[in-house]
């Protein structure tokens, strides 16, 4: 049996699955002050009817790191940056303890300028004086040559409880993203590790002896042990849980759009090429872009509790949510109330909905049914427009070869899957707004927890080889070795895949035979003075997000 827990903004859901389907599920209100209480509550509840020894693993999607970052309750971090020429690194200042340590590395990893020992010493002295205990060591182009990050790490080590090295988090380029990612990682490190300890104790006290995995924003998981040094990877995993849930529940076999409609927002995701699309750039948090991989989603302020506004005769809904709908005792009419008035649903106190909408209608000279109709139509159109924009953005993404430009595949969704609390209510109007067929899966109420339970491990690595320099480097895995001048793309590809597999073995993932995809590969002849000087080889491969196949049959529904 597989156990999934999704700690969401409002509810914490747990689902227990076996090959035959859902064995048990639990839902409690999320206790924001103490997420562990919520987890303990659903765990205890769901394990009453089964033997905990039967549970093969626990996957957990948690908002812990997200909340700590967004609410600024994280720990001060000493950020020490080796910058080099380009955009002034002062613009990337983050936190109260940000220091420039000189040094420059170029795009091929050549050291142009050494670190400034004096600047490093001064940074350390300042951090020591301020009692800073966790650090981030970040260099420009450290994914090409980590020497400066390593030197910073060595220097701060005696002072530090924990140091994040920028190149260890991702092989992708993006200096300011690397700074932000390393900063956030260190800032939540202590909090996350305490939480991880508590989760492990809680699981053990409930009789669980299985591995624990943490959900990531890319729809995959990482073992709890890995998450202890990369807690930033756990941010914003909520939407991913829902998307993975729908993929588990429905047999998605064509390009599709997935709409997860909640109280405040609608998250739009896209499924293509047999998997949910992953954003090429990392996700942003607190307005800062990071290198954390995430599903390509677009979030808009339309949800069941979006407040309805009339201004200058124009009826709109969202993006604000002032509270629950009037049917739930709220003070202002929302889209749910409009659905009640239109008799699309009969939710809660329908009379309250009717009187709320009537009052608003009276003020604006409309009759209640028309107002409700306009508000719903507005919401459906917004969702349709934003979906179209997302698809356009995906299809307009830059490409860099003539072949891709001429032959590149376009995403053309044929189906729209709707999930979330108000999914059924919205689906009726979305059917009119979309030309594609609009489907509402049966088990959508627990899809998020099911998605968490069934999500598999994901890993991605980038290999970078420069045969002129005779080096091969896989930043994320910290693999580095000398290579001969004859080192080829075939060898690089094989080596990237082998290293990724070794890593999967080392972290003891439950499914070590996951398919590895080569996402991008390129080889460039480097020419100097009209002669071939070497080859510049890049390989990017991944284990893409997916769900445990064997369990899909049990929870599959008609959709």
């Amino acid at each position, binding site marked *: 049996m597989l156990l999934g827990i999704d700690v969401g903004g409002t509810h914490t859901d747990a689902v227990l699955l076996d090959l035959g389907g859902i064995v048990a599920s639990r839902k409690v209100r999320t206790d924001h002050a103490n997420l562990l209480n919520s987890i303990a509550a659903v765990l205890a509840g769901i394990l009453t009817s089964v033997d905990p020894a039967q549970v093969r693993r626990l996957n957990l999607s948690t908002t812990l790191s997200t909340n700590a970052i967004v609410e600024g309750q994280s720990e001060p971090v000493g950020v020490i940056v080796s910058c080099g020429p*380009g*955009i002034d690194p002062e613009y990337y200042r983050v936190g109260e303890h940000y220091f420039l340590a000189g040094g420059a590395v170029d795009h091929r990893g050549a050291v142009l300028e050494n670190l400034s020992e004096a600047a490093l010493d001064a940074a350390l002295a300042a951090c020591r004086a301020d009692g800073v205990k966790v650090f981030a060591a970040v260099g420009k*182009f450290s994914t090409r040559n980590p020497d400066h990050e390593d030197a910073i790490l060595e220097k701060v080590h005696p002072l530090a409880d924990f140091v994040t090295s920028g190149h260890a988090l991702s092989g992708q380029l993006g200096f*300011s993203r690397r700074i932000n990612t390393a900063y956030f990682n260190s800032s939540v490190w202590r909090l996350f590790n305490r939480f991880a300890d508590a989760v492990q104790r809680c699981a053990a006290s409930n009789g669980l002896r299985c591995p624990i995995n943490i959900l990531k924003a890319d729809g995959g998981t990482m073992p709890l042990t890995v998450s202890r040094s990369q807690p930033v990877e756990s941010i914003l995993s909520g939407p991913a849980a829902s998307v993975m849930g729908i993929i588990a529940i429905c047999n998605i076999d064509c390009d599709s759009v997935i709409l997860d409609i909640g109280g405040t927002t609608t998250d739009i995701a896209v499924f293509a090429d047999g998997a949910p699309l992953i954003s090429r750039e990392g996700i942003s948090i607190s307005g800062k872009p990071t290198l954390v991989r995430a599903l390509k989603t677009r979030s808009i302020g339309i949800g069941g509790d979006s407040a309805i506004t009339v201004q200058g005769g124009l009826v709109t809904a969202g993006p604000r949510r002032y509270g629950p709908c009037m049917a739930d005792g709220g003070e202002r009419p929302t889209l749910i109330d409009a659905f009640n008035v239109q008799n699309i649903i009969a939710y809660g106190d329908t009379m309250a909905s009717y009187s709320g909408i009537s009052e608003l209608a009276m003020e604006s000279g409309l009759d209640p049914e028309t107002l409700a109709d306009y508000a719903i139509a507005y919401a459906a159109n917004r969702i349709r427009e934003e979906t179209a924009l997302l698809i356009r953005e995906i299809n307009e993404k*830059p490409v*860099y070869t003539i072949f891709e430009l*001429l032959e590149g595949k376009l995403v053309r969704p044929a189906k729209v899957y709707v999930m979330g609390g108000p999914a059924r209510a919205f689906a009726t109007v979305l059917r009119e707004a979309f030309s594609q067929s609009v489907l509402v899966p049966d088990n959508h109420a627990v899809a998020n927890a099911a998605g968490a339970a069934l999500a598999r491990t994901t890993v991605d690595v980038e290999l970078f080889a420069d045969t002129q320099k005779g080096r091969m480097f896989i930043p994320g895995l910290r693999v580095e070795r000398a290579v001969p001048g004859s080192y080829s793309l075939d060898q690089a590809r094989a080596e990237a895949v082998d290293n990724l597999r070794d890593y999967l073995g080392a972290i003891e993932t439950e499914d070590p035979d996951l398919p590895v995809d080569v996402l991008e590969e390129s080889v*460039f002849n480097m*020419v100097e003075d009209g002669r071939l000087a070497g080859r510049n080889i890049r390989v990017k491969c991944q284990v893409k997000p997916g769900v445990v196949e064997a369990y899909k049959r049990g929870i599959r529904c008609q959709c």
Partner: protein
Amino acid sequence: MLKGKRKLGVVFFPAYDWAISSTHPERQERLLYTQDQLLEEGLFDIPGVTEYKPELASSLDVDRVHFCFPDVESVTTQSHFVSAGGAIRAAKLVMEREADRAFALIRPPGHHAMKAVHGSRGFCNINIEAVMIEWVREHYGRKRVAIVDTDCHHGDGTQDIYWHDPDTLFISLHQDGRTLYPGTGFPMEAGGPRALGRTINVPLPPGTSDEGFLHVIDNLVLPILDDFRPDLIVNSAGQDNHFSDPITNMNFSARGYAILSERLGPHIAVLEGGYAIQGALPYVNLGIALALAGLDYSHLREPGFDPDKYRQSAKITEYIEEITPQIADFYFDPPKTPKTGRFEGDTYVRDKEIHYDTDNIHEDQTETLHLCGDCPGLLIIESRSTVNPPCLGVEIPATACPACHAKGLEAFEQAQIKSKYRYIQLINRKDKDYQRFLI
């Protein structure tokens, strides 16, 4: 936080699967390090800076500009349609006000491609900027356009295409033609009889550094632009004036390029040459992008840059200060007649011998402009080359008078009957009609 003063659209297309040959300067690797640098710097994470992909230009877009013999397909590859399409995309961003400035970081380049095309010269087959500008004029009306070419090589192709066009100002800053390919671009080359002073050439001595380039920008280019009042300023942003460029001899720096871009303020910059692909391009391209977006580039410095080491000599400074006002006069007080070409009756004729170094083709050409008091006049090009028998090109301008319009159609028709030419092409801008006739 970083935020640009202006919205910048960057059309980045490195054509990683295209090269002239595997060790040629125009090879797959050319923009690899530039892309690395832009990604590492996070250029596209800056609010207001957006990356776009090229459109694909069509043969029609090329036919509007060039006489391609025997036809467009024979003298181009897909890469040229993508490159021109990239420039068109950049122009569209500006024209549709999706961006305030646009940078087409594309290859292959185009500024050595002339009006008639038999093959590739100076790594160029079709003139990317001209295809873009004429696309703009076809879709948005007859705009006044200024092209400022800051590639180290004289933009002889662009000069040839706009030689007779008074609505297009072409200013080229380049290393003196006596010391570098293509060996042209002297001040007396100032445009045809209908467009005298609309072509301005500023040959600079080898060793010119930031100081010299910026002196010419401040004291020649900007005053001329102020007077010309273009609707659109296009920068042919070649980057081979850089001190580390392997095939030229100038001392320009990445910061110098950024300052130049800021002062010039082009609506659209289009990459041309520049082959110091590791030591210069990543930094120069970043500098141009930052300057176009109105972002701080003060921290930009390429490896090995030492202002003292690369400062131009006092002699060069003196020389540039001396020639600048003289060259400015070619715009403000142009000569009464062109220094090249000849008048035959009511026509102006230029005989040209054109060498296509990249494809090793030789072309003999006679260009005839029918002088007309009512319109820019009918243009006829007779051409033959080592790869093509005699060919004819007839261009009727968009603002042609009825007489020139009729004369142009007649010339196209007569050529088909007389079979003196093997390939005949009509560019009829007035009716937006582009035809080709093969005998």
